[in-house]
């Protein structure tokens, strides 16, 4: 999706303004949103690609005028409804209209240390032949899918070189839309800054982007 979230190379957002001695959270509600990530994604299971896809569909002005944790909240609400865990009416009312379920035990406080220190890798332990190897020159396919993708717009139709094969990973374009993991190799691909941004960029500089087999063609 060529959306407002695909910010690489955009202009007009002003300077970076780092906050000195920034606290971990600025608002109490931000903490609750962070803390809900693990329980919510366990309750009506979704993967990070589904999560990102919902945020990207917020609409450009909504996306750009809301904060990180508001993006998360939007995704939680949307996915909880999509997955049938809650209804919109329940979210509006702030109360459950159906009896407490029995089947799905919630994440408990005692499980949190294990979960947070283990996470859930998107790496897939499967022997799949890579299409490319380190040193190969590759062109990024000039696709403009409306669905979720992790191939940023600024890299499309650009020439890069495979720096390293990261191994086999879930493919976001399908996983985001319930179309399976489509496991495939994901590579670190090196691009000259001038290839991406033209001759005004420094010839010394480069950008490394992680890209999957399906995004690339041997040059």
């Amino acid at each position: 999706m060529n959306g407002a979230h695909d910010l690489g190379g955009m202009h007009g957002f002003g300077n970076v303004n780092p906050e000195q001695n920034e606290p971990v959270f600025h608002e109490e509600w931000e903490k609750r949103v962070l803390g809900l990530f693990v329980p919510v994604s366990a309750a009506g299971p979704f993967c990070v690609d589904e999560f990102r896809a919902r945020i990207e569909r917020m609409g450009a002005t909504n996306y750009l005028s809301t904060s990180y944790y508001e993006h998360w909240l939007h995704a939680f609400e949307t996915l909880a409804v999509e997955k049938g865990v809650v209804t919109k009416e329940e979210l509006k009312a702030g109360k459950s209209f159906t009896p407490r379920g029995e089947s799905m035990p919630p994440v408990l406080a005692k499980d949190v240390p294990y979960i947070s220190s283990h996470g859930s890798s998107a790496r897939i332990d499967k022997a799949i032949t890579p299409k490319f190897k380190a040193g190969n020159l590759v062109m990024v396919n000039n696709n403009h899918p409306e669905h979720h993708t992790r191939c940023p717009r600024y890299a499309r139709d650009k020439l890069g070189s495979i720096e390293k094969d990261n191994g086999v990973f879930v493919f976001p374009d399908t996983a985001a839309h319930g179309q399976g993991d489509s496991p495939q190799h994901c590579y670190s691909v090196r691009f000259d800054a001038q290839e991406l941004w033209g001759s005004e960029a420094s010839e010394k500089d480069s950008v490394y982007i992680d890209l999957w087999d399906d995004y690339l063609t041997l040059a």
Partner: protein
Amino acid sequence: MSDHDHNHDHANSRPLTDVELRVKALEQVLTEKGLVDPSAVDALIETYETKVGPHNGAQVVARAWTDPEYKKRLLINGTEAIAELGYSGIQGEDMVVVENTSNIHNVLVCTLCSCYPWPTLGLPPVWYKSAPYRSRVVSQPREVLKEFGVELDKNTEVRVWDSTAELRYMVLPERPQGTELLSENELSSLVTRDSMIGVEVLKTAESQGVSE
């Protein structure tokens, strides 16, 4: 926010904002359905507010500065080497460490969202998640670094790492000159979050006045 009975913030008794009401409603509905245990939410918050943060990454950096074998392992397999020090998990399942040298400067970004290596750096600061940083650092890294006070020589190679996949990056900053006599522990106190993102170059111990 653990009191779900009133739509007021007791701390300053103002009405709740829309977003506060939405968060409260979501947690309340899921809790009533038995799908969320609020104490698990509390535990997660506590984890990222107090335990997981850039002090973790600083330990990794200090170890790499003082133990050449560890540094070698760290650059070959970041995930495993970082786990040796006890850091692992959510948003750091597959770690890659990139090394700054006298002529290579690495800097991290996630242009598409705000991917960040939680186990070593904690939760990302607002500026890292903001449109100005995400839009500009990938196309104008030197200008952005200048705003952070980092003036790079034109012969220095800048490498921008855009975290588009599930790899999470962390910069191993250069060890400042004049720190030869410091212990690993003292060294770790020199290492800042920003130096591990790549928007800061660590000063010598003297100029920071760290050896007191």
